[in-house]
């Protein structure tokens, strides 16, 4: 505990030291005076002999200190005193940095939540997800689920996994009993699924081995969310029976809230039952299982991948017809989840944007520090002449920067806390997103602190280095009048502000390109009338509606019941809602030779009932619409859209031509094109129009479809009547997503409005900070040049000349900076085009507009100081010394 004793004896040590040194000097002086010197001369000689008294004392004291910490602490205290002395400066700097830090930390909470997801169970790093790879699948070709036969084969044949569980994550079921039936998303999992993760249930148990056997498989585990919402967190739910898909299931357990996998949001789990039918060659086409496996200890991911590749090659050799071009890969669980969630590039854009804001904020603070440093040039010269080394002065100034940054970090974290709340309230546009909690967690905290340290260095290093370059004599001699030191500071500041403008313009152009792109999407004409339509999804289950005649009967009676609801003008059903994305099918045109697979003709494919066109408001351009006569017994007919006609019959009349829609699950039949309808955008959030084929429901029934009601009242008011009509036909049939067509389109925006608002806020912040930067620079320069301006005025310069001079100075910097930013922003459309597909991001006309806006802001910010310069009183100005 020696250091502890030292801490307390130190005061005495310092006193001893001073006494010794004093006595030393006194004795020397005495001696010199005895030799006949005057006291004055003797003192000077004694000090010369001794060296720098203060420095010697300081060095001697440092022996007793933990030098690093103590002198840093001294620096911190000094910095705090300095900052308290100039509150306006401190406030500006701290607020500026806290804004930058808060924006970054808030956005980082998304990175923390989405890219570093908290995973259930133990040792998520040794869990892997095995997925199918097919280069033909455009979007994320390496995250496809795999088929049951492959799962069963690989489970037994591999030597690299200790456990392999399978999950069909995206099944839909009707959950009935107690309250109205609802459609839920659930997962069917192999009984070892929860064990593979190493997780336990919160209530009851997880699945037992053997519960995947028919007869024992009617057991279910509830998610924490469903347990809370539908069962009121009732602990006695375990052991009770629920109706799932018209069958009784016994609830055996409830999972804790922590059991969630990013991007997967099942509300309930049942055992995955694989029967003989799942082992046939035909079952190989049904790829719906995600495989979760735990590596045998000691086996690396590469070894596992190699093993799986071998197994996939084997399958390809054994079943070339179905397995051709299908490979397989393994990713660690966190990698897979983050990758397949597909939010990385959007987050990268956001983080880049906010880091620019941070840079601008840092440049502003650096500018402020430089200004202050210019005022403190003399103080620094005094310090240097008293023996402070350059390193020491740089350290002192860096400490000041650090203190400002840490204060900014503190305020920034408060703002972050609020920001995250705001963000969380806005990020609810789909289940997967709202299932992920955004928090001010340790990652965000660490990030904020690191960002602050970077800020401290960025904003104070240049001023510190500049200021510590001291010419003692010149600096000490210079009186307020000489602007030489200020000049080179101003030059550095001008570079900083120019840089700010470059960054702000770059950011502004980037943001406005995206905002414009999104805005165009919001405003685009979709090709139908989305207002006054109520929609609801229906999934007819196999238990009651396996035959197509049953499906047709259900739809016929449903539509006639719906049409009788007061307020309903027309009712129709469609296999998918307009502008909500369609399945694509291969098309053949009669009389054309069969084309190679790569040039195959494709079209979106929708099945509709007779009144669909009227309900949706899609104009029929030529020919006729479907009628009740177009049923199973009549010749097959189809409608096509303009794009189809234009692309596949460029110079022929499509009416009367025969085409064949080759959907997978049907025997293809030739159909006659009887009408051409107007184009509808394929997806509300994209500008694309695809060739489209409409088939008649009576000729080609489907079991999954949407109801559409065209109403002359507020669509939401029809919901009870709609539910009643459906319940009147089938009391256990749930309705999915009952919402207005406009609501459907809103949800499809999928965060675009939030994204737009964010970008808007970022651009505004960047612009504001840049404006503050240029204002500070020009205002300071006017202050510095008061004397010069006084002389100019005294010599006859006009006020307007002076303000023009000042304005020009600011504008020059803004213009140079902005031009650099403009050049930087040139490749942005290309970059965004590759990230945000479906968004129109090319808008060269935006560049000059944004540039002009920036310059306007620069003029406005410079205007105040310029006016002030104009009104400087020459006599007063000249008297300032």
């Amino acid at each position, binding site marked *: 505990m020696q250091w502890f004793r*030292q801490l307390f004896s130190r005061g005495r*040590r310092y006193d*001893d*030291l001073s*006494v*010794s*040194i004093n*006595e*030393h000097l*006194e*004795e*020397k002086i*005495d001696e010199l005076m005895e030799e006949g010197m005057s006291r004055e001369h003797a003192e000077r000689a004694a000090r010369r*002999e*001794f*060296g*720098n*008294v203060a*420095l*010697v*004392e300081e*060095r*001697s*004291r*440092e*022996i*007793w200190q933990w030098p690093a910490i103590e002198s840093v602490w001294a620096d911190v205290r000094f910095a705090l005193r300095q900052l308290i002395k100039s509150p306006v400066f401190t406030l500006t700097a701290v607020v500026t940095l806290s804004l930058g830090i808060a924006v970054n930390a808030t956005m980082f909470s998304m990175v923390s939540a989405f890219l570093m997801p908290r995973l259930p169970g133990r040792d998520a790093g040794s869990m892997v997800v095995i997925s199918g790879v097919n280069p033909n699948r455009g979007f994320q070709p390496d995250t496809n689920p795999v088929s049951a036969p492959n799962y069963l084969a690989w489970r037994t044949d591999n030597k690299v996994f200790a456990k392999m569980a399978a999950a069909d994550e995206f099944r839909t079921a009707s959950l009935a009993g107690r309250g109205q039936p609802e459609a839920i998303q659930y997962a069917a999992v192999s009984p070892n699924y929860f064990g593979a993760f190493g997780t336990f249930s919160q209530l009851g148990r997880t699945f037992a081995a053997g519960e995947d056997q028919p007869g024992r498989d009617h057991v279910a585990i509830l998610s924490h969310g469903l347990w809370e919402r539908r069962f009121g967190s009732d602990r006695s739910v375990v052991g009770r029976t629920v109706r799932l898909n018209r069958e009784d299931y016994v609830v055996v357990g409830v999972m804790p809230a922590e059991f969630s996998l990013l991007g997967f949001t099942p509300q309930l789990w049942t055992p995955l039952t694989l029967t003989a039918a799942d082992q046939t060659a035909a079952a190989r086409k049904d790829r719906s299982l995600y495989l979760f496996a735990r590596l045998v200890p000691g086996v690396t991911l590469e070894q596992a991948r190699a093993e799986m590749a071998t197994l996939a090659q084997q399958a390809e050799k054994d079943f070339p017809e179905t397995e051709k071009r299908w490979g397989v890969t393994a990713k660690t669980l966190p990698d897979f989840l983050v990758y397949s969630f597909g939010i990385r590039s959007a987050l990268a854009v956001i983080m880049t944007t906010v880091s620019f804001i941070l840079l601008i904020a840092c440049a502003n603070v650096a500018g402020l520090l430089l200004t202050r440093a210019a005022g403190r040039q003399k103080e620094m010269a005094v310090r*240097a*002449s008293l*023996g402070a*080394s*350059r390193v020491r002065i740089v350290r002192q100034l860096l400490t000041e920067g650090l203190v400002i940054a840490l204060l900014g970090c503190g305020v920034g974290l408060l703002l972050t806390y609020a920001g995250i709340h705001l963000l969380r309230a806005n990020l609810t546009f789909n289940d997967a997103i709202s299932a992920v909690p955004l928090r001010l967690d340790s990652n965000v905290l660490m990030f904020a602190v690191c960002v602050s340290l970077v800020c401290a260095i960025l904003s104070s290093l240049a001023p510190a280095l500049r200021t510590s370059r001291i010419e003692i004599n010149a600096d000490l001699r210079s009186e307020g009048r000489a602007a030489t030191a200020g000049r080179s500071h101003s030059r550095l500041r001008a570079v900083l502000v120019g840089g700010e403008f470059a960054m702000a313009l770059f950011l502004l152009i980037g943001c406005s390109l995206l905002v414009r792109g999104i805005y165009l999407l919001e405003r685009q004409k979709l090709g139908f009338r989305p207002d006054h339509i109520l929609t609801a999804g229906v999934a007819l289950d196999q238990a009651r509606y396996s035959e197509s005649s049953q499906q047709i009967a259900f739809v016929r009676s449903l539509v006639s019941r719906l049409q009788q609801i007061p307020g309903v003008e027309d009712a129709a059903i469609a296999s998918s809602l307009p502008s909500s994305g369609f399945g694509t099918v291969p098309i053949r045109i009669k009389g054309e030779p069969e084309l190679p697979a790569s040039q195959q003709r494709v079209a979106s494919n929708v099945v509709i009932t007779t009144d669909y066109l009227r309900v949706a408001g899609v104009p029929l351009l030529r020919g006729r619409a479907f009628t009740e006569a177009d049923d199973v017994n009549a010749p097959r007919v189809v409608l096509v859209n303009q794009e189809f006609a234009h692309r596949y019959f460029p110079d022929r009349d499509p009416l009367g031509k025969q085409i064949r829609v080759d959907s997978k699950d049907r025997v293809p039949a030739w159909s006659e094109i009887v009408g051409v309808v107007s184009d509808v955008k394929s997806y509300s959030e994209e500008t694309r129009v695809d060739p489209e084929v409409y088939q008649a429901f009576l000729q080609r029934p489907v079991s999954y479809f949407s109801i559409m009601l065209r109403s002359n009242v507020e669509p939401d008011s029809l919901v009870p009547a709609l539910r009643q009509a459906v319940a009147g036909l089938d009391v256990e049939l749930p309705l999915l997503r009952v919402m207005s067509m406009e609501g459907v389109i809103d949800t499809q925006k999928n965060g675009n409005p939030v994204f737009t608002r964010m970008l808007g806020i970022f651009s505004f912040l960047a612009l504001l900070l840049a404006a503050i930067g240029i204002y500070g620079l020009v205002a300071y320069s006017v202050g510095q040049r008061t004397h010069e301006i006084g002389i100019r005025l005294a010599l006859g310069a006009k006020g307007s000349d002076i303000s023009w001079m000042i304005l020009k100075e600011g504008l020059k910097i803004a213009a140079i900076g902005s031009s650099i930013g403009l050049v930087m922003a040139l490749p942005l459309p290309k970059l965004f085009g590759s990230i945000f597909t479906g968004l129109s991001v090319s808008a060269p006309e935006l560049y000059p507009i944004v540039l002009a806006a920036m310059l306007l802001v620069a003029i406005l910010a410079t205007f105040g100081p310029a006016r002030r310069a104009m009104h400087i009183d020459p006599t007063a100005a000249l008297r300032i010394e």
Partner: protein
Amino acid sequence: MAKNPERRDLFSGALELMILHSLRLKPMHGYALAQHIKQVSDDLLKIEEGSLYPALQRMLKEGCLESEAGISAKGRPTRIYRVTDAGMRRLEQDVSSFEKMFAGITRVLAVAQA
């Protein structure tokens, strides 16, 4: 820029060696110590007097020296430095290693002259 105050025109450790050796003869206060070293070396070793003090503090911290309140020759309060047992041991070690070094240097110089 002030010159480095820790600059010594001596071998490293030489100042400490001389301090220990001088104080072993007689406990002294700082000024007396400086005077002593100057006189004994016949002004050959010119040291900046101030540089004594960091060295003294270092040795105090290492436990080679101890200090006590005392009165200077002129009757003013000062601090008297005295060598501790640990200081004596350190001195012995330092002396023997210095002797070895000097012997080595002397031999090298002798060869160069021949």
